[in-house]
């Protein structure tokens, strides 16, 4: 299971970010959110959320074995008792969808709100969906900049934008 994104539909409203921190942390803060929306010129919006890779580089990178795959759901879970906050998983993640918690010395990431991701529910344009697929979702794990570049091509945006005299 993973939250996947239809980037063409995202409007950049960041309701996903807002509800994520509120549900998981009891307050509203981008820095506490497990999903982050980045906006690129000229108006491309790219939500970044853990792809729950099957072959997960974050798990491989963790020297404490603090990251593990849940047997049943195949979600990547952070074991807070083992995590020492070294940040090697963040470096290893291709999409930078793991974050250092600003108030605790551990990392945190999307764990699908216990099976009912609130971001998916609130997204007003259905840009997010919870899917179970038979292939390795790591193909979704890309850097925001890379996705933005792909979207510029998808929207056929001009290389040279018009400006003033």
């Amino acid at each position: 299971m993973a939250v996947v994104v239809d980037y063409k539909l995202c409007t950049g409203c960041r309701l996903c970010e807002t509800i994520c921190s509120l549900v998981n942390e009891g307050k509203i803060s981008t820095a506490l959110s497990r999903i982050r929306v980045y906006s690129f010129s000229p108006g491309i919006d790219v939500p970044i959320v853990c792809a729950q890779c099957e072959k997960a580089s974050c798990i491989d990178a963790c020297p404490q074995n603090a990251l593990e795959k849940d047997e049943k759901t195949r979600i990547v879970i952070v074991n807070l008792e083992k995590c020492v906050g070294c940040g090697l998983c963040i470096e290893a993640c291709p999409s930078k969808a793991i974050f250092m918690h600003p108030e605790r010395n551990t990392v945190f990431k999307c764990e699908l709100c216990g099976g009912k991701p609130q971001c998916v529910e609130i997204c007003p344009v259905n840009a997010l969906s919870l899917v179970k697929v038979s292939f390795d979702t790591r193909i979704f794990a890309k850097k925001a900049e890379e996705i933005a570049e792909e979207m510029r091509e998808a929207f056929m945006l001009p290389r040279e934008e018009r400006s003033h005299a």
Partner: protein
Amino acid sequence: MLRGGYVGKILKIDLTNEKIDIIRTENYFDVNLFIGGKGLAAYTLWKELNMGIDPFSENNLLVFATGPLTGTLCPGTRVCIATKSPLTGLFCDSYVGGHLGAEIKMAGYDAVIISGKSEKPVYIWIHDENVEICNAENLWGLDTFRIEEMIRKEKGDMTVRVACIGPAGEKLVRFAHVNVDRYRQAGRGGTGAVMGSKNLKALAVKGTGAIPIYNVEEFMEKAKEAHRAVLENETAKARKRWGTARTIIFTADQDLLPTRNFREATFEAAENLSAEVLEKRFWIKHRACHSCPINCGKLGVVRSGRYAGTVVEGIEYETLALIGANCGIGNYEAVAYANLLCDMLGLDTISTGNVIAFAMECYEEGILTEKETEGLKLNFGNEESAIRLIEKIARREGLGNLLAEGVKRASEKLNSRCRRFAMHVKGLELPGYDVRASPGMSLAYVTADRGGCHTRSWPISYEISGKAPDGTVIDRYSTEKRACIVKRQQDETTACDTLVACWFLKTAVGNERYVGMLNAAAGMKLTVEEFLAVGERIWNLTRLFNIREGLRKEDENLPDRAFEDPIPSGIAKGRKLEKSQLEHMLREYYANRGWDENGIPRREKIKQLKLDSLVPGV
């Protein structure tokens, strides 16, 4: 003690002395009386501005005020930018969406109040509790898009939010805007010019903190219900698909669309500017401000032709109306490029469309010749000349220097013949609704606190439907119930502006849900009646501010064109506004408001609204 919604601090920055102060929000003002946003801004300008100061002097203030629901899960919230306007000399509050408001809150501030004037160009950098005044000499002269990119690059963080001015703000063009998130603007009243007068190029913000919520469960429930209500609302649905652009066919059909400097009220080429055309040929995706389910923003691309390579969010109705129809331009690609120029150079598209249309009429009437226009042929519909003129206005070159003063001052300098078609109220250029076929709108314009403005009250929907809010039947062209409708809408809008919730969601969300969210987020115990009373209180306070600045009853008037030139074609052909109609509505309106016959709030009203402690002599 504030319990949630608010983040608790107000940041004061004095640019003259490079002094930075922090005040606890609850020590600064009474949140129960003014809530935040416009309330906080009106309180600040009333308390801290001396009467009669020059808006461009260091004595003026620039307030960035958020509300207790800004940046939360409440559908669509923004930030209020307030100052004494260089166009009107009156109270001015202009709102901008995007994500600046949320960022200011996450940085820990409910408001940022900027005073004084820097000697050299600077920008303000707010990174949580670290506040710096930085050199901006290398940024001076650059357009708004470049500024945003450069500051983000310098900080190595593309999520930094930037409010900045273009060349127009630097040159003190009286209707210069403040630009945010590339395509969002606090457009009206010249807030960007005030920023320019302070030598302040930008305000850049990064916040990593949190907005506390008093009762998370209850707040979530209320907010989700509000989102559901918005997504089910028919008007909101239409806006979600077509943005504000869909309005142009409506106004063209109803003889409300300003055309060729408000001479006509319907435009033969309106369909070329319609949402239907933009959707097919121009738009590529939807865009939204913080936490907004409506996404009325549309990103568009011009693919070919003379304006190929134009990428801009829009085109909003007001721009289509004022730069399109009002200048006689029926080519959406030209309007899109003009829109882009205004965004980059820092100009309000409503005022810009007005001054260009005014110049076009002056040119056609022989008041301006090619000597003054430096060879520009300014006949209506000449899109190339209009586009050239935008650049000239932003840089105050040639005729642009005169038009940069706004239509009121330009007409006073030019020739007494042109005053009758200088389309403004109290110095603020009129937006996209002709009043000759809408008596209610004329009352809304003349009584709006910031001058000719459509956002405080928009009684048109009641006039067209023929039903007042209480269900009684009203005639479209009569004055019945208008005073009552306009007062109620102004109070509601103002209450909404304290939160600072977007006008486009107001009807769908409704006062009860707003109050529910506010109480749950902030731990307050406001009733809907009290919430509306806050709106009325603030409306009276901005009134008192304006009176202190010299506003008189005579100023609550419209240009002669509204009373003298009948609509030449369309559904309301032959209609014009009667002076007696406006006078009648004004009398009724003042009485409804508890103001005297000159529009001054009576002592009892001031006391009833608990404003007496702020007003000496009551």
